[in-house]
């Protein structure tokens, strides 16, 4: 590539600004500005505003602050306590204990929301305090949360799959169905890792849960009823055609308010605190999204992502080699870009390569999602890392380190997908051929 020096400058500025402690959203803007100045004569500031306004005023984004608000409301109710009271008698005996609630919670919430950040804030807000109370190792709590929240992108509904489907002209419904089993398998792999670590790791000594008879356990399970109702309402509203995916978030907020009211934990102060808390968190995320949208524009002008994809295309690799090259390519890209941007910036070049190799394009969508999920937890620009930092106050490197095992599990998941492509293709193929089709 002839653009080695500009790329080097670009990376230098990125690490300088982010590393020295400039606020993430503003640092991204600064980097994007430098990119625009280096690679194009177009007016950087005007272009930034066009892009920032479009990304901040988007209808599909409205679900995000609503889900964050829902998390803030639930966090102030007895719901999370109750949920853990209902679950702990059953799960405490499992190897890994209540850490599994992080993963199961994210998997269930992934079926409600299309974004990883919403999944992370809602589940994390409830589970982190409860798990800490019980002395689970902090790295385990943070790491599993960072990893499992990315299931929001794989288990339908999924914003990434919608964008991928529209970009390559394939059925979004098929893609959604393709995501179901791989999402569940990935969740199981996370749980397997937790189980193994509970034996291996010396630091894994949570407080023991009190022993209970089966009757007592069943009796305690009544605490789960409100949570189950809430989940059923939100998911049900979507699948019964009452609400679109975005509108389901509104059901979530209203459901949580009702729940809080019935538990007597809804007061003016808890209401306003939850609201202001949601406003702060979504403003934090919005500033980063604004910066990221400008960075994505700047990357488009630089032509770096497409140049790299072109480079890979010129190598004429075999099918497996190509997938490996793309795996490395998207991991590197994912360090610096959010998933949706890396998809739209590269698909024009990558799609023909995939089709030419006879790779199933629906299957490849799931492959892409796993890789995009990794991007959420890889530094320096990893969205889940940012959100967790805002939520827990831990340093970025602590969170990133805690998430490394999850990253490796996702790499393994890619090979599982290659070995068993039916995981992704079976459901869409068979439902298509069904009597309804």
């Amino acid at each position, binding site marked *: 590539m002839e653009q080695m020096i500009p790329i080097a400058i670009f990376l230098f500025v990125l690490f300088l600004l982010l590393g020295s402690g400039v606020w993430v959203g503003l640092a991204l803007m600064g980097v994007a500005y430098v990119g625009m100045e280096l690679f194009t004569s177009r007016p950087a500031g005007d272009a930034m505003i066009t892009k920032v306004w479009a990304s901040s005023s988007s209808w599909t984004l409205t679900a995000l602050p609503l889900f964050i608000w829902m998390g803030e409301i639930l966090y102030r109710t007895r719901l999370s306590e109750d949920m853990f009271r209902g679950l702990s008698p059953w799960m405490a005996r499992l190897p890994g204990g209540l850490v599994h609630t992080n993963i199961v919670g994210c998997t269930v919430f992934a079926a409600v929301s299309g974004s990883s950040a919403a999944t992370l804030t809602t589940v994390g807000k409830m589970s982190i305090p409860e798990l800490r109370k019980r002395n689970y190792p902090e790295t385990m709590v943070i790491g599993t949360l960072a990893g499992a929240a990315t299931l929001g992108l794989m288990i339908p509904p999924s914003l990434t799959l919608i964008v991928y489907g529209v970009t390559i002209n394939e059925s979004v419904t098929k893609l959604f169905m393709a995501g179901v089993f791989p999402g569940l398998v990935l969740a199981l792999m996370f749980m397997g890792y937790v189980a193994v670590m509970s034996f291996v790791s010396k630091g894994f000594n949570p407080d023991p849960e009190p022993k209970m008879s089966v009757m007592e356990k069943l009796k305690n399970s009544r605490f789960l009823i409100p949570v189950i109702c809430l989940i059923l309402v939100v998911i049900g509203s*979507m699948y019964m055609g009452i609400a679109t995916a975005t509108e389901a978030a509104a059901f979530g907020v209203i459901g949580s308010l009702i729940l809080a009211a019935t538990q007597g934990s809804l007061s003016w102060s808890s209401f306003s605190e939850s609201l202001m808390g949601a406003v702060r968190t979504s403003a934090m995320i919005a500033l980063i999204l604004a910066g990221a949208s400008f960075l994505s524009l700047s990357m488009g002008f630089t032509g770096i992502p497409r140049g790299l994809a072109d480079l890979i295309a010129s190598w004429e690799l075999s099918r497996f080699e190509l997938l490996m090259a793309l795996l490395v390519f998207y991991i590197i890209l994912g360090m610096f870009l959010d998933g949706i941007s890396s998809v739209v910036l590269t698909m024009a070049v990558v799609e023909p390569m995939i089709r030419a190799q006879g790779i199933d394009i629906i299957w490849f969508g799931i492959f892409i999602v796993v890789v995009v999920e990794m991007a959420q937890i890889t530094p320096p620009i990893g969205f889940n890392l940012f959100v967790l930092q805002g939520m827990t106050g831990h340093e970025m490197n602590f969170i990133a380190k805690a998430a490394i095992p999850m990253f490796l599990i996702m790499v393994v998941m890619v090979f599982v997908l290659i070995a068993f492509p039916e995981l992704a293709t079976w459901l869409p193929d068979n439902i298509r051929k069904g009597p309804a089709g």
Partner: protein
Amino acid sequence: EKWDMPMAYAATNFHSEVGAAFASCVTEGTGGDLEIVTHPSGSLFGGAEIKRAVMTGQANIGERLLSAHQNENALYGVDSIPFLVSSFDDHEALWEIASPYVASALEEDNLHYLYSVPWPPQGLYTNMAIEDIEDLKGVKFRSYSTATARMAELTGMLPVQVEAAELSQALATGVAESFISSGATGYDRGVWEHLSHFYEVDAWLPRNAVFVNLDAWNDLPDESKAVMEDCATTAAADGLAKSKDYTSFTLEELKKNGMTVERASEHLMGQLQELGATMTDDWLEAAGEDGQAIVNAYKGE
């Protein structure tokens, strides 16, 4: 000089392919003096931002579905008046009359019009057989523009506002049961998974227009301008041919996947054209003298 050209649709869409061919035609024709790089899939600017971006020089050239901007100027919606034209040929005749008006409207927006390519004709997707316009009463119909909202109002359909990104899911869950679009959209989105009928009603043929920032255009040397205009003529012709081919291809695909694809009955078509007359009047009211001149000239032929 390098010009970046934002485009809204996927790289494999025929509009994007025509645009890419146009870009390399210009690059070769000017011997590399003016290199045009296309950015499909809204990867640079999304569809909704492309006009603003080119208008203000944030990109020098771009492609946009023109009728999306008819709130700003009714003339941009001349290609989307329901049931005014009923075939590619009719539509081209209308466009030949209208394009000078549209070009001068674009010029007021600091844009130089280069060429445009029609989408395949818009048909009606439903989940049941429709014999009479009464059958449409109470059907949940996706409205996304002034024209589609008005259509729902006139036919008694229940308008539901569904954004493009949520279309597939809205159909899957029954939030929407019917919509108007080209056979291409139905093929791209695999609509047969949810709906059963496609009626070729040729409601309208919206166009994607390619335009250049006026200042950038004026700064070009005359040779480059000539090359661009030549390439634009070629692109317009290629695009029209591709659009026609693609229409028959996508309708075949809809059929292959089990949808009933047919022309609307004469009875239904007559009712729809009545409705079209009302909506043409609506449009004329908004489009003023220029609009009247276009429609008069078209009907006079």
